[in-house]
């Protein structure tokens, strides 16, 4: 029997299948932990965020709407949200341990996340339509969980400028994605 897809595992998890949840964790935790560590830069906090994320996955699996986004996209959204909540709770002036000696895990096979990869390709194409500096601001915010003020400081750009870049970029991205949704899969 072929290995179950992340979507199928998630369907089983929504039926309270603990074995499926365990497999889902094995298959996705390294990716989600990577996302949390990138944002929090702190292992202990990232572990807490990962635990929160998987608790949400267990509780909300039945709300995952197949066809609206890939399961991995849904999982990344949950993990990222847990990490950003943790980052904001941390408060100003506190930073992670900045440990950079991560041992990167083997990424899952490309076909494992094929559907997400095509969503990613569509998003990247749309990001490429933005001006370079605006794209940088959006991706910095995404990957590092930086606030407006932090992005402004890091890029030596006035706060008002950063805000207007981000807002304009968001609208352009939405417009672009609606124009060409996931055409990478075709």
């Amino acid at each position, binding site marked *: 029997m072929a290995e179950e897809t992340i979507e199928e595992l998630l369907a089983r998890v929504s*039926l309270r299948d603990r074995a499926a949840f365990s497999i889902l964790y094995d298959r996705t935790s390294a990716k989600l932990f990577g996302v949390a560590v990138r944002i929090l830069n702190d292992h202990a906090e990232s572990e807490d965020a990962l*635990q929160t994320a998987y608790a*949400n996955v267990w509780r909300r699996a039945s709300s995952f709407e197949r066809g609206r986004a890939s399961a991995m996209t849904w999982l990344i959204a949950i993990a990222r949200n847990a990490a950003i909540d943790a980052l904001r709770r941390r408060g100003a002036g506190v930073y992670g341990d900045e440990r950079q000696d991560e041992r990167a895990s083997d990424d899952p096979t490309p076909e494992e996340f094929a559907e997400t990869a095509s969503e990613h390709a569509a998003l990247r194409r749309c990001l490429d339509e933005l001006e370079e500096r605006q794209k940088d601001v959006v991706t910095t915010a995404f990957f590092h969980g930086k606030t407006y003020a932090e992005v402004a400081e890091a890029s030596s750009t006035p706060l008002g400028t950063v805000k207007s870049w981000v807002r304009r970029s968001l609208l352009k991205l939405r417009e672009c994605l609606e124009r060409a949704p996931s055409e990478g899969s075709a």
Partner: protein
Amino acid sequence: MSETEGGDDVILAGEYALGVLEREDRARAAGRAARDGAFAARIVDWELRLAPLGLEVPAISPRPALKKKVLAAVFGEASAGAPTKLAAALNFWRIAAVAMAALALTSIAALIFFSAEPPERAAPRLATTVLPAGAAPVLRAEIADGAREVRIAGASIETGADEVAELWLIPPDGAPRSLGLINAQGDYAVAIPEDLRALVVEGSALAVSLEPPGGSPTGAPTGQIVGVGPLART
């Protein structure tokens, strides 16, 4: 609500999803989302638009010991039935739940989606629900107040020669309960046993699995899950 407010909402939801809001602004937006389903739905839209970028982040294996801790916390919480410590960090999914609740009618309805390529039909009248673009439901289910029966419309389930479709009720916490075998096609009603009616609440879900003739031999779903639909007041 004016056009301008709608536009501002779209941007605020995007800012929330991207994560650029300062702490107080983020907390305020989360509070707003907890009360305002339309706003909550916009946040979810943005989350799903942006999240694929996370695919670029290199995977890092967490310590093996973490898995045990996560499973204990998650299953422990599930069996205790009352989440407490984790509740504070559930913004995103509280928001998702509110987004669904915002689609208000008087009955509880669920859409169950195909897992494979959706056929091209049945979509138009579902436009007011959280139907994903391009996907057609396996069936549409409605449960009136009192939870005596599930009214099923437009069932369209592909079953193999030696398979039957079984309907499940999944409570917010706890094991799936069988609602019995169902017809693969058509419109019909399925009675809900009296002892299960209390479990028919928002946050529960309906699911369909494919089982051997006679239904699941174990009392839990054993075969392929055809689809799952969260119950929401619509």
